[in-house]
């Protein structure tokens, strides 16, 4: 039988786009644009806004660069240097080449995670549509760089214990495919669980306290800030580890 699908499985807090659509008389779930329901454009618009904020801030901070940094330029320099030290433990002499990519990845994910805590905004990472492409980009990057640096020798690790090669090859292939899946599901699941808890607590408040405004979800906001930072760190760190495993020079007889 075809059970009527409930409109929303995961509880989402309303965003300003919902109010906008309500003003314009559009139903987010049934109006189609470019072949997709309107609600699928929410994370795209949100991540676009995040990108605008990040690009705007970094352009503003580095507009008039000085020899002795002050204000926002000093802040950005500290941040970049911290990122460099963080990556240097794993990448070694390749750090400078990959610093822009992983730095961008980290701050993009961090600001996207924290974006949902602003009223009337929603984290784009509450949707698989945002996290899976990022994981796929990382997957393509480390495979590409591995092939670029080690040429055909890169594929040697698929047959690693050579006498067990026919047995190990499928396992290695599955392991490769699982990496982007686990990266994206980790980020998506953590942020969705966080947002779900926040939404449930917010919707619960009027049932318990009536019209008295009590910030019942305050402790969850503090936890959410912590989890957002940790998840952004983990995504960046795991992709760095994958890359360093792909490009490391393998010494014989370990």
């Amino acid at each position, binding site marked *: 039988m075809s059970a*009527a699908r*409930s409109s929303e499985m995961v509880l989402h807090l309303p965003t300003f786009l919902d109010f906008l659509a309500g003003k314009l008389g559009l139903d987010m779930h049934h109006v189609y644009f470019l072949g997709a329901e309107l609600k699928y454009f929410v994370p795209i618009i949100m991540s676009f806004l995040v990108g605008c904020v990040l690009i705007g801030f970094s352009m503003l901070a580095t507009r008039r660069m000085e020899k002795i940094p002050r204000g926002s330029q000093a802040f950005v320099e500290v941040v970049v240097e911290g990122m460099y030290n963080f990556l240097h433990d794993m990448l070694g002499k390749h750090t400078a080449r990959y610093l822009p990519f992983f730095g961008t990845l980290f701050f993009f994910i961090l600001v996207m995670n924290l974006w949902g805590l602003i009223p009337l905004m929603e984290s784009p990472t509450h949707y698989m549509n945002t996290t899976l492409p990022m994981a796929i980009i990382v997957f393509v990057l480390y495979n590409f760089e591995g092939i670029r640096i080690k040429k055909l020798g890169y594929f040697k690790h698929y047959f690693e214990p050579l006498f067990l090669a026919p047995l190990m090859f499928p396992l290695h292939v599955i392991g490769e495919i699982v990496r982007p899946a686990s990266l994206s599901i980790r980020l998506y699941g*953590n942020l969705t669980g966080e947002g779900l808890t926040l939404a449930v607590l917010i919707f619960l408040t009027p049932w318990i306290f009536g019209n008295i405004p009590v910030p019942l979800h305050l402790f969850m906001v503090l936890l959410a800030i912590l989890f957002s930072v*940790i998840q952004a760190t*983990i995504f960046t760190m795991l992709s760095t580890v994958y890359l360093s495993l792909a490009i490391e020079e393998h010494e014989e007889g370990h």
Partner: protein
Amino acid sequence: MMYFGLIGLGICLAIGLAAMGCGAGIGNALSAALEGTARQPEASGNLRTTLIIGAALIESLTIYALVIGILLLGKLPSMDVAVQLFKMMCDSGKPLL
């Protein structure tokens, strides 16, 4: 109805069992970190960072179960559909799968 009941049971069991394993894992990690800190207090900062990252990695296994739970939740009918199904089952007199 049996189908939906099993889905509901599956969601609870998935998250419960995953949380059980992850709890044991995080407990192990925490006890080891505490022991390390007690023996070598100057290494506590380094240990804390590693512990938090490791705990988040272990915790993500429970999150996978949560994602499965959310996916399965989408298969359940809404309340009025379930009531209609129950009425149909009562009218027909046969157990409805």
